[in-house]
């Protein structure tokens, strides 16, 4: 039954192009190419999940793929985690609307990579087991620190999932000609299947495949764009300048970072936040040792850097080929489906229905894979940090932890769908502010201070972390994006879009000051344990190794 309908759809697909084109002006047609290609991805990923499920027994299998992933594969999987739909469509959308300013989101987050490698990755791998909270609790008190990190991780994961689900809704209803709600449900069901059954192993391979597809698709689009200009970047940029309403302004900074405080704050958020994201960092536990972890960082940095270079071409390509093409514009001259569709329309302009279908399928796969990666990070915060270490004081059995992980994955999947339906219509690149702010405010200071500073104490971490987190959330709510634009107040109470500079400072300063003032016996023990932790972090002594099967 399934097979015959698939064959029919394939025949239809061959006959479709003219038809699809004719319908485009009225409403988004059902995009058979895209659906077929997406179904191929789904079939592959479910096959992998089935295979992975048979190999996922222990907590270590579930949360860290048994520590068995090679550096190269992990590098690709991290690329998958990093290159989300926000990166593909959000950046193209920003370049399409604001020109150069969109590149800020390509260039600055990438600075997180060298920082992550230089300051965090290796030590994290040497000290941790499943989550970033592990490294802290070698010398600090288990319950309070884990509760803080797990709460912040969940805030991070849920915020990030909203970004993805919102992107998915707009995109998939536009592209596939299916309903917003259907798209949300498809994503929800798939991620629960991947994560709950296949754990980290399935999630890793899903990310890996998607990363390869994404890089291939983006490369193809860029190649086709550049080919039109005889492989001359100058030619592409000239065409963009000709098309852009502001002319050469497309090549210059505009008003995205209107003042120095916003600029510094945005930089703090992207650089420090990007260097300490839990769903990326937890991937360093899926490799056998620090050496493979380092390799995976280098592979990931190369792939991601390459991908960001491509966004320079895709964004300007959209300005050059989409902005003046009536096929992609509505009656008022605005881009059909909103600016987030810029990259997708470009695919249509370059390679017709087939490429459109491929890129749409890749975009859908991207969202599904990224949400899966976030879901397993969220599940690890719930099962390993909160359940096993806080509620059960480290006494939970392996089976129990795996079971809780699976339930957590299911809950997060449901939550993702509900939130995806609740939020609509925001530019997805802007909404990324919440998770990045949380990451830079809570995770970065804790990681750096606990690994590098002897005097850090539990009281310091907990006070600084919660205060920083509260500051971040309050300033975000009172800022221009939520207070003014969403809640409709005439003016924001806090004037800056990016609160990271303030919340990170509060977090760091509080942790340091409170730790220095902490003379409790526990603080003394914690300081005394630093040498041991330091040697372990540097040498990999006693580090987690690959699981024995």
């Amino acid at each position, binding site marked *: 039954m399934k097979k015959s309908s698939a064959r029919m759809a394939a025949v239809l697909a061959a006959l479709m192009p003219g038809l699809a084109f004719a319908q485009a002006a009225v409403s988004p047609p059902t995009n058979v190419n895209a659906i077929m290609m997406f179904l191929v991805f789904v079939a592959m990923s479910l096959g992998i999940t089935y295979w992975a499920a048979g190999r996922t027994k222990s907590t270590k299998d579930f949360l860290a793929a048994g520590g068995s992933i090679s550096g190269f594969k992990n590098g690709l999987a991290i690329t998958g985690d990093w290159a989300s739909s926000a990166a593909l469509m959000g950046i193209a959308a920003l370049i399409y609307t604001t020109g*150069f300013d969109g*590149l*800020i989101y*390509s*260039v*600055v987050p*990438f*600075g997180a*990579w*060298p*920082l992550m*490698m*230089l*300051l965090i990755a*290796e030590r994290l791998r040497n000290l941790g087991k499943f989550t970033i909270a592990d490294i802290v609790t070698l010398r600090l008190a288990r319950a309070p620190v884990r509760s803080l990190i797990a709460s912040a991780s969940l805030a991070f994961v849920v915020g990030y999932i909203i970004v993805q689900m919102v992107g998915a809704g707009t995109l998939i209803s536009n592209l596939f000609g299916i309903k917003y709600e259907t798209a949300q449900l498809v994503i929800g069901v798939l991620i629960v299947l991947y994560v709950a059954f296949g754990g980290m192993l399935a999630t890793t391979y899903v990310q890996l495949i998607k990363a390869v597809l994404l890089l291939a698709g983006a490369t193809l689009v860029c190649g086709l764009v550049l080919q039109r200009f005889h492989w001359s*970047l*100058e030619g592409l*940029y*000239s065409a963009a*300048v000709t098309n852009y309403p502001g002319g*050469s302004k497309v*090549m*210059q*900074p*505009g008003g*995205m*970072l*209107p*003042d*120095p405080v*916003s*600029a*510094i704050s*945005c*930089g703090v958020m992207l*650089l420090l936040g990007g260097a300490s994201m839990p769903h990326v960092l937890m991937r360093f536990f899926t490799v056998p040792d620090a*050496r493979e972890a*380092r*390799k995976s*960082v*280098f592979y990931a*940095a*190369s792939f991601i*850097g390459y991908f*960001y*270079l491509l966004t*320079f071409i895709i964004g300007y390509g959209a300005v050059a080929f989409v902005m003046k093409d009536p096929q992609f514009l509505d009656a008022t001259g605005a881009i059909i489906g909103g600016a987030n569709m810029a990259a997708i329309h470009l695919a249509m302009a370059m390679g017709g229905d087939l490429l459109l279908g491929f890129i749409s399928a890749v975009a859908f796969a991207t969202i599904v894979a990224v949400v899966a990666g976030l879901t397993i990070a969220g599940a690890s915060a719930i099962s390993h940090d909160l359940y096993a270490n806080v509620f059960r004081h480290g006494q939970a059995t392996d089976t129990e932890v795996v079971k809780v992980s699976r339930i957590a994955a299911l809950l997060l999947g449901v939550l993702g769908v509900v939130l995806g339906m609740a939020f609509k219509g925001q530019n997805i690149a802007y909404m990324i502010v919440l998770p990045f702010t949380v990451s830079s405010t809570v995770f970065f200071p804790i990681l750096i201070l606990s690994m590098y500073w002897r005097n850090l104490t539990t009281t310091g971490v907990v006070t600084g972390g919660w205060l920083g987190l509260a500051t971040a959330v309050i300033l975000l709510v009172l800022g221009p994006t939520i207070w003014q634009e969403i809640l409709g107040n005439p003016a924001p109470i806090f004037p800056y879009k990016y609160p990271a500079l303030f919340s990170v400072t509060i977090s760091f300063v509080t942790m340091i000051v409170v730790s220095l003032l902490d003379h409790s016996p526990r603080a003394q023990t914690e300081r005394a344990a630093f*040498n*041991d932790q*330091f*040697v*372990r972090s*540097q*040498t*990999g*002594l*006693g580090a987690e190794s690959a699981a024995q099967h």
Partner: protein
Amino acid sequence: MPDLSSIIDRDPRFHALQRARSRFAWRMAAVVLTCYYIFILIIAWRPALFAIALTPGTVVTVGIAYGLGMIALSILLTGLYVWRANHEFDPLNQELLDEATKNSLR
């Protein structure tokens, strides 16, 4: 495990290695942060600098070139650290671990 950690901690070679590695890492991190902050602050304070054409007659601006350069630099620095860590620091590290294990068994 007999206290390997404190054996290593007493080894001056460990501290030499750890200092060399840290110095290298922090210096490179400083380079990265400086370059990125120059980028960010020019955008905020002196956007006109980034609007200048790279060479006369081209539409490519200094800003675009700087942005591309930052991505290349980041890949390069990451690669540099990984290479040095795998080729220089790791063997020294392994030596320390092996010797400490041997000493602890004696």
